[in-house]
């Protein structure tokens, strides 16, 4: 499953990032490393971008970017 398809409110773990290098690098530097826990908080009123809680902080990213992030449901 990718992050943009993750239902609002669910907790996931990052599996991998498949985007172009510059994007993957920045996402990982912001803490989206494999194994890191993430929670999809909400999407903006027009459906995009989405707000993700990453460890101790919140990050907004567009669905285009979220699509490159593979996640697994946390259970």
């Amino acid at each position, binding site marked *: 499953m990718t992050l943009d398809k993750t239902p609002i409110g669910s907790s996931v773990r990052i599996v991998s990032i498949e985007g172009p290098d510059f994007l993957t690098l920045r996402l990982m530097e912001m*803490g989206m490393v494999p194994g890191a826990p993430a929670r999809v908080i909400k999407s903006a009123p027009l459906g995009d971008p989405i707000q993700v809680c990453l460890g101790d902080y919140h*990050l907004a*990213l567009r669905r285009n970017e979220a699509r490159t992030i593979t996640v697994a449901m946390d259970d």
Partner: protein
Amino acid sequence: MSAATKTFPGSKVRPSRLPDLHQTLTVAVAGNPNTGKTSLFNTLTGLRQKVANYPGVTVESKQGQWSVATDCLVRLIDLPGLYSLEATSIDEQIARDVLLGRTSKIAQPDVVIVTVDATNLIRNLYLATQLIETGLPMVVALTMFDLAERSKLHIDVQKLSEALGVQIVPVVAKRRGGIDELGQAVLTAAAAGSRQKPGWQFSISGQNQTSSVSNLSRESWQELLTARYRWIERVVSETTHNDEAKQPNISERIDAFVTHKFLGPLILVLVMLFIFQTIFSWANLPMNLIDHVFSALGAGLRAHFPPGILTDLLVDGVIAGVGGVLVFLPQILLLFLFITLLEDSGYMARAAFLMDRLMRAFGLHGKAFVPLLSSFACAVPGIMATRTIENPKDRVATIMIAPFMSCSARLPVYTLMIAAFFSGQKVLGFISLGAVMILGMYLLGIGVAIIVAWILKHTLLNAPSPPFMMELPPYRLPNFANVAHTLLARVGVFLKQAGTVIMAISILMWVLVTFPRASATNAGSDHATQVENSYAGQGGRMIEPLITPLGFDWKIGIALISSFAARETVISTLSIVYKVGDDSGADSTSLVAAMRNAKRADGSRVWNPLVAVSLMVFFVLACQCMSTVAIVRRETNSWRWPLFMISYMLVLAYVGSFVAYQGGRLIGLG
């Protein structure tokens, strides 16, 4: 753990035994955005700071003096916020280049203070560990320490300090807590000199983590990056503990309203409405006051100085010019007060979050929303507010379209035209035609702005959109001292940079309407004759063939020329050429009557509703504001963009007026 531990005395502070060589010590404050970096910088330097641009770019450079001890002054640099040494924006590049000593223009700092947000340790330590690996003398300032304590997060500072190999000083900038300790730590680090590389290992097959990722395979840097985060997570879990289970986040609860599907946009509208109301109406009082003070000053000078060219220059050129600049101050102050509050409280990021989808449709960034909306009050502070947009091309695109937002200076022009030609008329029986016209002018500006933004983003400013990744920082109460600092800096920039250009242009405009002097026999007797014979008057006649297709005669031409400096002067100029006294305002009945009765040489009327519409369209689209030009020059750091802006907006204004006037005639209006 590493050799570095020998060079610092732990979190206990030792009195400095350092000689006076620190007179010239350069210390840089670096850290992630939203970590209280600027707040710390302001606390350390107080008012002894100056804001400038880094050479060649528009990134702001803030430097100040910090008296660490009574006899020790340090040069402090506030670097732009950065998330990593792998820079993705100009801001980050500059911070990195200064830190790594890669720029010849700014010396590499002797000591680096890294701000680390205690409430967001893991991500903050990512940059901190990168910086520690550079071996530069370093001190970590643990900010938001009080907030961490309050949320029952306990950090073993001593232990964390040992793990990282640098001294850590908890600071609470607001209360100056930890400031003396930070000073001592900086001096100690400076005396110890460069440190040995830290003890941790993130290397794979001989590759060192500090080498740029561009030399590594994708797998390698991903592995290194993950290893670094794993290491940080382990260190943080070993050095911190939470007394209670994680409490529900306050910011999340505020966000439940502020970025709610329906409430969010509503709150945004209300916030902007409040700001607008303030800028439009509350700013009026101080603006009128400034206006009156300068008029009185001019009148006073005229009364006490012998009449002559010098007095005219002083009164009509210098004083009127300076007054014309200062009159913007209340609006700029108020708008920046609000923008700083929105920024520091964390709301600005939410506004961008709400608006990003809509702005993206025009190729712009969510962060362009507030500057553009502010430009409805005045493009000058709006353009200054684009600094929050990191991507330079997005920023220039936003600056280029900001003047299309109908600003408060256009309102008097619209008001005059409507008073003269559309008053009392109704649409559908109950809506005032004037209101519809004004709304139409606002919409015209917005529509053209959207098209221009789209074209610019696909031509001159074409670039792959940088990923939209924006931290939504926790809500925080803005710090009064910080807000005051930002306001002072903004006002200083406006007065110094815009002031000089505006003064020069207003003197030029004065020359254009004053020379050549009317013949000696009636010199000074008739202001209107003087204006008609001046260079501006001659210019008006010269451009008459050009503006006839727009429905304008040469008298309107004079008004157009003089309104290049500032739109609202069109009214005083029209008053002069129609000889109704140059102190009448937009609601002047005598000016309205004079315009309605004005005749061309062939006896036909100059003005009709269609000419009024054509003129309004011209005012919507033309860049007739020297303050805007001056501020664009300052914000883009070149004359290229302001000149481009003047020219393309002039072309658009001409085409717009032409289409309005000729189109109107075709369908039988006018």
